[in-house]
């Protein structure tokens, strides 16, 4: 068992917000999804106050050892989520962490307040970092802005409050420390790194409908490890580490760097059971790499 902000989890592997839709997966895989649920807790896609259609396609670009996505946070909005998504997600066999984002502090407060009242919700994650939406950068890039947001919503809930940090900032440790000092119970990182791909037709235009997107996958793993280590040196609250985790060794690296939990994201796109596989590898059931200490460049 793994303890995280008072939650008892079966293992330390969860999903990154927006990288697994348990409701859709149930339609595709049936009850097997619930019977063999791959994560120790489920983090929902970002919920916003109003419904969002998401960005115009194309939304994906495969890049070197990874993916650039420009999804744009499509979701039903708070009302739709409470009516349609929450009852279904409450039936999952693991604790539910709801990720929320607002464009103004009052919006975030309304979201936190609404979910604070719902027994189905085990914890809340504040998205202050999504790089796909113009204003998403602002709060999480600045320690003072982050602190103001956390201070605004902290009194609204006794549930664990996780702040999802953006890597698109000059000093992620300072933002993490500000979140902690303002009352966050945990921080999670990294979100995607802002990236771009040009249209193959060669006129210099952007490929993605949202122009820029977020880079994820093994391409960002070394950056994630460095940022988790940096944040671990600055805060006492638990850390959810993520970024390019593909196997138990990658997850173990993040734990050794100071994370309490590890989130799997883009790897689930390649393999819907990636979370369970990585958890099993972490538990030592199937070593992902030989026990010899390997040299890197040879």
């Amino acid at each position: 068992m793994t303890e995280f902000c008072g939650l008892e989890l079966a293992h330390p592997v969860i999903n990154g917000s927006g990288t697994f839709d348990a409701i859709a997966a149930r339609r595709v895989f049936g009850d097997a999804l619930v019977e063999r649920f791959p994560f120790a807790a489920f983090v929902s896609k970002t919920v916003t106050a109003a419904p969002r259609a998401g960005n115009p396609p194309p939304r994906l670009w495969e890049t070197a050892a990874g993916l650039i996505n420009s999804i744009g946070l499509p979701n039903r909005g708070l009302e739709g989520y409470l009516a349609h998504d929450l009852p279904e997600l409450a039936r999952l066999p693991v604790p539910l962490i709801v990720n929320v984002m607002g464009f103004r502090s009052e919006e975030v407060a309304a979201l936190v307040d609404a979910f604070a009242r719902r027994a189905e919700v085990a914890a809340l994650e504040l998205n202050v970092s999504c790089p796909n939406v113009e204003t998403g950068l602002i709060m999480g890039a600045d320690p003072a802005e982050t602190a103001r947001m956390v201070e605004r919503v902290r009194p609204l809930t006794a549930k664990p409050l996780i702040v999802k940090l953006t890597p698109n900032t000059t000093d992620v440790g300072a933002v993490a420390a500000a979140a902690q000092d303002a009352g966050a119970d945990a921080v999670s990182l990294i979100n995607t790194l802002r990236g771009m791909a040009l249209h193959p037709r060669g006129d210099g235009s952007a490929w993605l409908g949202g122009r820029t997107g977020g880079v994820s996958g093994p391409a960002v793993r070394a950056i994630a490890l460095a940022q988790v280590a940096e944040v671990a040196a600055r805060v006492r609250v638990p850390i959810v580490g993520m970024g390019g985790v593909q196997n138990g060794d990658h997850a173990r690296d993040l734990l050794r760097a100071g994370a309490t939990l590890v989130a799997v994201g883009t790897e689930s796109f390649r393999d819907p059971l990636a979370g369970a596989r990585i958890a099993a590898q972490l538990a030592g059931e199937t070593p992902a790499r030989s026990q010899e200490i390997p040299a890197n460049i040879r």
Partner: protein
Amino acid sequence: MSDRRTLAPFGRRALEVVEARDVGAYRLLAAADPEGPAPRPGQFYMLAASERWGGGEDERPWLPRAFSFLRAGDGVLEFVLEDVGPGTARLAELAPGDGLEVLGPLGVGFAAPARGGRAVLCGGGIGVVPLAGWEDWLDGTATTLLGFRDAHHAQAAALFAAPLLATDDGSAGHHGLVTDLLARELEPGVTVYACGPPPMLEAVRALCASRDVPAQLALETGMACGYGACFGCAVATREGYVRLCLEGPVLEAAALEAVT
């Protein structure tokens, strides 16, 4: 809807390639799938080579690739692909005995025509593939129209029972577009099933709309996951964006303003 979707086993399964051969300009790949459920025509799979998937030039391919199946039966899944990028190039290299990682069947397949109605199947290029299993399912009652660039590509017509052919250069069958052939078939009671490049599908959609003939279009778009997780395969419909991997790949033509 449930009869149009066979549930996928949860997780990828490692299959063994049992056949790999050229069919004109295309590559047919067959893999033994003894444990896999029978898919519905129009459903698709996410494929990746078990080896050297991610270590190629520019570290690609990395994400699995979505493919409709050609036929499925006797524990064998058949796919046809065209080498147009790093993923299809790697898959085209596979030989009998090689490993193929498969997730599926995914998505929603074709719906049968109304009772007493006639099915007209209309495919273009690599898009003919999902129509083969549907032709089998309709058991000889369908009219099949296939369009290709030239006679070399049109060798894929051999994968069908008795198709009518059109080629862009006139080297096989009708010299012109497959939609020329389609226009002659549109009459009351017909349901059209089409798959092909977007300009062809848009022509099919517009033609069927103008003749008030229902049509089901199997669309394609880039996908990262195939099971609704990534939200990358958004397609604009009259009701807003849908995830093609969940609500499609077969969509009612009437649900679309246009195929783009």
